[in-house]
């Protein structure tokens, strides 16, 4: 594993087999981890071993493999509990992804608690996955969705938010870090103010989980969601943290096996804790893989990861800003290593195609955040999102490729 005292990015890159390959004959500069991150060898190996050596369904039967598989699956849950500093494993629910986690809360909590005229407060920074589920439940219940504005730098406007909170506010659902422009929101203040107003809070931590240590007990959010594949784990696994007392009061979302206590045609009673929300055979190997990914990042340490990423962000910001006619969209004071930009006279899709030929992978488009694009009056941006394995050479490749875009467009 990694040296515990220094952060050696080249050593970390060797943990990720994808970096051994080239793209279009160029070294791969992968700057699209905000969409999905690459996987370290240890995650691939752990999942492979789970299929090769210990695979069986969980929570069923008394045979040996089922028992080992259950231990690994539940072990991953404990890894994630510890990582999030949740009070109990009963508060950690495995889902398919962050989107499913949000839909679970919107449907379960929303359906049971929302009345006509109640308000759901989101922000302009949100990913569509933290907008649409709330719109759907608002349509069904007569509740109203409102969005906290952001300023010209892309900062969450706390004062406006405090003004919006009131007796009608039932749910506040806000991102921890903007996927499109990197803004880190003041989550602690958001949560405390929502609680003072009597609302429950869901935080979308999809972009936060790969970049920072999470602490549920300090944060005091009612619900916190993230997805596995952005934090170097596999696809098909997401996490919903819910405070124990919240989960107890929540009706089930999906019905099926594993989430019941006793089934009769007259009346079915449900399992307690996380089991109530994990109907059917869960993504067993994906959960085990996510556990390995979380162990991997924690062995390196988020303090070092954060410092490395912030240094890289500063370097990339400086380098990109030196390019004529390049405009960085979103310049919040506290940002994760995500840079969205536009080039005068060149559409982001043309930027994306041209830099790709230089081996540089970036995301171009609206980033599933169209209200945010509207705020900045752009249809799309180019976005470079960095992770622990990126180095200065990746940034240099991006800058050189952006310059070649300008060469082509003259």
């Amino acid at each position, binding site marked *: 594993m990694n040296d515990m005292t220094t952060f050696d990015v080249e050593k970390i890159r060797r943990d990720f087999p994808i970096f051994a390959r080239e793209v279009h004959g160029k070294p791969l500069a992968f700057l699209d981890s905000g969409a999905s991150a690459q996987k370290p060898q240890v995650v691939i190996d752990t999942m492979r071993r789970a299929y090769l050596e210990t695979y069986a369904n969980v929570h069923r039967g008394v045979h040996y493999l089922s028992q080992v598989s259950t231990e690994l699956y539940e072990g991953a849950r404990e890894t994630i509990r510890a990582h999030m500093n949740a009070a109990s494993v009963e508060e950690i629910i495995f889902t398919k992804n962050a989107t499913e986690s949000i839909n679970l809360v919107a449907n379960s909590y929303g359906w049971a608690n929302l009345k006509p005229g109640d308000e759901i407060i989101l922000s302009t920074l949100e990913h569509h996955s933290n907008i649409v589920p709330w719109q759907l439940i608002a349509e069904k219940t007569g509740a109203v969705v409102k969005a906290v504005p952001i300023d010209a730098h892309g900062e969450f406007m706390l004062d406006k938010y405090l003004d919006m909170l009131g007796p009608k506010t039932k749910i506040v659902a806000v991102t921890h870090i903007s996927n499109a422009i990197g803004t880190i929101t003041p989550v602690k203040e958001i949560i405390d103010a929502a609680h003072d107003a009597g609302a429950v809070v869901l935080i979308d931590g999809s972009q936060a989980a790969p970049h920072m240590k999470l602490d549920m007990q300090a944060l005091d959010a009612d619900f916190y969601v993230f997805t596995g594949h952005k934090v170097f784990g596999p696809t098909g696994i997401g996490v919903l943290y819910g405070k124990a007392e919240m989960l107890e009061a929540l009706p089930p979302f999906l019905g099926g096996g594993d989430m019941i206590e006793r089934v009769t045609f007259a009346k079915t009673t449900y399992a307690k804790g996380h089991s109530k929300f994990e109907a059917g055979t869960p993504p067993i190997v994906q959960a085990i893989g996510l556990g390995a990914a979380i162990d991997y990042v924690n062995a390196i340490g988020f303090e070092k990861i954060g410092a490395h990423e912030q240094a890289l962000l500063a370097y990339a910001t400086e380098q990109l800003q030196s390019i004529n006619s390049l405009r960085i969209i979103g310049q919040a004071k506290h940002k994760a290593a995500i840079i969205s930009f536009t080039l005068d006279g060149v559409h982001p*899709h043309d930027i994306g195609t041209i830099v790709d030929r230089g081996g540089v992978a970036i995301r171009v488009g609206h980033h599933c955040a*169209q209200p945010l694009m509207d705020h900045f009056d752009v*249809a799309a941006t180019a976005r470079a999102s960095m992770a622990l394995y990126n180095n200065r050479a990746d940034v240099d490749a991006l800058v050189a490729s952006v310059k070649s875009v300008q060469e082509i467009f003259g």
Partner: protein
Amino acid sequence: MMDDLRELYQEVILDHSKNPRNFRHPADANHEAHGYNPLCGDTVNVYLKMGHNGLIEDAAFEGKGCAISLASASMMTDIIKGKTETQAKEIFAGFQKLVKGEENEFDAGEDTERLMMLAGVKEFPMRVKCATLAWHAMSSAMDDKPEISTE
């Protein structure tokens, strides 16, 4: 610079994208359609003035998009003006096969050479929809289907 990029972003394409022809909304247009690519958010409105016997008397467009989609819309409106609905749809069918890389032979008469400028798109499968968005909208406008989406 890679050859296929040069092939894609030829001078003519860049010229059309920077100075799109027929970029306007004619007051006498009698057919129109809105094309939308939800993947990138690009939009195009195609306006046609259809005369007797399916003759396209005027063709124009407005919209936001990448160099490929703007150039394609610009060239298309130039090309279909003065042609019949059937001719325009035949050119579209051939053009679609060309940019998808399904066929290398392409014959659109006097317009062949101009449209071949966009043939470079076939090396970039993710960009085929950019090149065909305006054409889909044109075809929908003729069929009186006011909205098309590439997804």
